[in-house]
């Protein structure tokens, strides 16, 4: 089955490629990244700051139901070319991960479709692999904990 979102992570390299085709005109796809209101809606995060211009910076924050901050990340914008390109850094706060460099390229395919390519460069191969494993580790932990709950409940 062909996936709409593709992730390419070559063995032993400290970079990562994500590509995705959208049923959206490139202008709308870009708008989803350029305007704070839209970022907040699709990323499900609070946008504390988003200055989309060269030397601008950004900061996002997500809280849980009790108001505790569960995720905060920030970075600076190095290049911002409407409907074409964003170059920026990304760093998770209070996490053992170093800053990463992201190249986002937006391409028009047809009037109604577009393509986003994200090229991310990490500090090391280890760092890239740790980042990649996060959702996997989280999923396994969740499933494992719930399995333990069930087993405990059956006794």
């Amino acid at each position, binding site marked *: *089955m062909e*996936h*709409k*979102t*593709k*992730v390419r*992570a070559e063995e032993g390299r400290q970079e990562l490629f*994500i590509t*995705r085709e*959208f*049923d*959206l005109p490139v202008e*709308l*796809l870009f*708008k*989803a990244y350029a305007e704070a209101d*839209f970022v907040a*809606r*699709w*990323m*499900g995060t609070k946008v504390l700051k988003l200055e989309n211009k060269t030397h601008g910076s950004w900061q996002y924050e997500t809280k849980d139901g009790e108001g505790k901050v569960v995720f905060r990340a920030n970075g600076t914008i190095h290049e911002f070319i409407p409907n074409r390109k964003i170059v920026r850094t990304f760093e998770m706060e209070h996490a053992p991960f170093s800053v990463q460099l992201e190249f986002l390229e937006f391409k028009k395919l047809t009037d109604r479709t577009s393509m*986003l390519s994200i090229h991310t460069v990490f500090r090391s191969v280890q760092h890239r692999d740790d980042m*990649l*494993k*996060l*959702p*996997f580790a*989280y*999923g396994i932990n*969740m*499933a494992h904990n*719930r*399995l333990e*709950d*069930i*087993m405990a409940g*059956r006794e």
Partner: protein
Amino acid sequence: MNLRRDVFQAIADPTRRAILFLVATQSMSAGTIAANFDTARPTVSRHLKILTECELLKPEQSGREVYYHLNPEKMKAIADFVEPFRKLWDDRFNKLESVMKAYERGL
């Protein structure tokens, strides 16, 4: 409509994971599997159906009973740790697409 089920969605459910653990060592009939759970038999059947649809389990008719055994090749796919990462971004991008489509329609 695509009826192929997502493997990770399948193993996210604790009962389904417990079923996979059960049949990991030996194939079992639906009845034997169901006897291991307090859950109602139709619920267990539904879990078996999902696990079969995403090919984690292979059913085999033996006399009047259907025996389920693990599909090791599909289990290997789970070992591909990149997949949950891809799925996370796929979900996010699906959300992006629907948010922007709603905006386009003036919602």
